[in-house]
């Protein structure tokens, strides 16, 4: 799988040299940044740690970055790491008591859901700075676009490729570590894992912080790319469910699954938007929901998982 990923990375890095239309580049950037967030979510989701609150981390990182730029004038090159660090700190604050007190399963999902809602409502409540539900735009700086991280589509393309590649690299690195095996054991049975000397809380914390950080990075870069921030699309239950759906549709158990999921959801959104337009407002979430249910019922391992099973089915064992 890593070979496919490297080939994809090289191909993606070379693609803008062909002189593709801006619309294509736009979709590509949006896909790669979503893929980074989805990959981050799936890193922990595949071990049974299902979070419905990744919107919280994305919202914290994106708004930290934008507020630092607008109010203090700190460049997004520093603002994005600062935002991601704050998101990771929030994840630690939320996850540590959860794991220590064994808040698992439904309870963990609902606690994270509450965290996402807190961030969304806080953003709306702090409307003097964040613009509330109307959203906000980072201040434009045409004469200093590098420091402001405001590139044209080509410039941002390479940034997005690099960020996406970093996410895949993290996945690959975790897959090769002992932690992946420890986490797999934990997801089967926490007590049994603890009894053979696995430090359950530490392993879960590590994967959660990495997961929150990657999701937050994808979200912050996405907000910077679009130059528009909105509490509904960056925090709360809506975005959190979209992340889960994307990762699940692509297949959250394989390295490129969330990426395929991102490509799939964005292609779906664009198709629905272009074919229905504003005439059938509501058709998009309807189709989205139907597909989500169908995927869970008939393709629980996602698109990539289905292909993998086809390919490896004749072999004995795994």
């Amino acid at each position: 799988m890593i070979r496919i990923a490297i080939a994809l990375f090289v191909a993606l890095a070379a693609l803008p040299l062909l002189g593709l239309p801006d619309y294509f580049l736009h979709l590509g950037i949006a896909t790669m940044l979503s893929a980074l967030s989805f990959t981050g979510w799936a890193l922990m989701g595949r071990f049974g740690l299902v979070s419905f609150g990744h919107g919280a981390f994305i919202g914290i990182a994106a708004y930290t970055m934008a507020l630092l730029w607008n109010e203090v004038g700190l460049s997004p090159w520093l603002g994005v790491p600062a935002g991601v660090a704050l998101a990771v700190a929030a994840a630690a604050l939320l996850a540590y008591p959860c794991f220590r007190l064994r808040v698992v399963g439904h309870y963990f999902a609902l606690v994270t859901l509450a965290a996402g809602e807190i961030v969304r409502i806080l953003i709306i409540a702090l409307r003097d700075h964040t613009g509330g539900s109307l959203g906000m735009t980072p201040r434009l700086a045409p004469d200093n676009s590098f420091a402001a991280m405001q590139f044209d589509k080509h410039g941002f393309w390479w940034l997005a490729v690099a960020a996406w590649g970093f996410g895949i690299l993290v996945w690959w690195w975790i897959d090769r570590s002992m932690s992946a095996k420890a986490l797999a054991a934990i997801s089967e049975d926490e007590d049994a894992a603890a009894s053979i000397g696995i430090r359950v809380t530490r392993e879960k914390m590590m994967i959660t912080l990495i997961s929150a950080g990657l999701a937050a990075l994808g979200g912050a870069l996405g907000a910077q790319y679009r130059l528009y921030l909105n509490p509904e699309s960056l925090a709360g239950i809506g975005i959190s469910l979209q992340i889960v759906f994307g990762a699940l549709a692509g297949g959250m158990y394989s390295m490129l699954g969330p990426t395929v999921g991102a490509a799939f959801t964005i292609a779906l959104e664009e198709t629905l938007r272009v074919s229905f337009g504003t005439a059938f407002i509501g058709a998009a979430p309807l189709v989205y929901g139907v597909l989500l249910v169908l995927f869970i019922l008939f393709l629980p391992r996602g698109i990539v998982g289905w292909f993998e099973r086809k390919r490896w089915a004749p072999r004995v064992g795994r």
Partner: protein
Amino acid sequence: MDPFLLEAIVNGILLGGVFALPVLGLNLVFGVVDVVWLCYAELVMVGMYCVWFLYTQAGWPLIAAFAACLPVVAGLGLLLHQLVVRPLLSSPPITQVLATGGVLFILQGGAMLIFGTDFRSLGVEMPPMEVGEIFVSGTKLIAFVAALVGAGLLWTFLKFTYVGTAIRAIARDREVMPLMGVDPRRIYLVASAIGGTLAGLAACLLVVQLDVHPFIGLSFGPITFMICVMGGLGNMLGGFLAAFLMGVIISTGGFWWNTEMSYVVAFACFIVVMFARPRGLFAR
């Protein structure tokens, strides 16, 4: 005491009454079927549209619209169970939650497609009543009383009928009950139907207080889940009490700060409670 604070507390208790019905419904379904219906607030939304449509568009009397709303949402609950939850009963819990999350998008999208994104109002308003030094909204008071009556009926049903006893037994021990001659699949169906009925009842009470729009579920859905978890998932009495607690927190929070901050405080309270009592405030 400051009359405004008193008014906030009274309003909080009335608000808790409105939260109580969906909380009971969710807890019943969770306790029996062991699945969280993430789209529960959207079922309430469908019920609200149902009442609105029958009353303002079809010209039915309000009581008839209410009466029609209950079986419609109950049927929807049955459909949800049969089509989505039942095939996933042996899947990991999180898959089940996600599937009902998909239904959330379906209902939201469907409502947008049929009714558009406009806010729809019944246009029924009762004058506020003056009790002592404070004002109490008449519609809220009626909704509160109706919620209590609904909860009482549910309690009576669970306590004094054969099916109710079976429901309580299966919530207590899922493995043993089938050996005692109770068909769990039938009980699941009954619980889903009752869960839907409670959503319909909540819809009747909400539609006279709030304008209905496709996203209304998002405004009280998350808080409903928080209340359920705070009281202990599946714990009916705990959820019922937590509903009033949360109502008062939100209402008095609105008195000291503003409405949004009061929700932030309520969610933060929830997270703190989760850390202090991971199995819920009223866990045994």
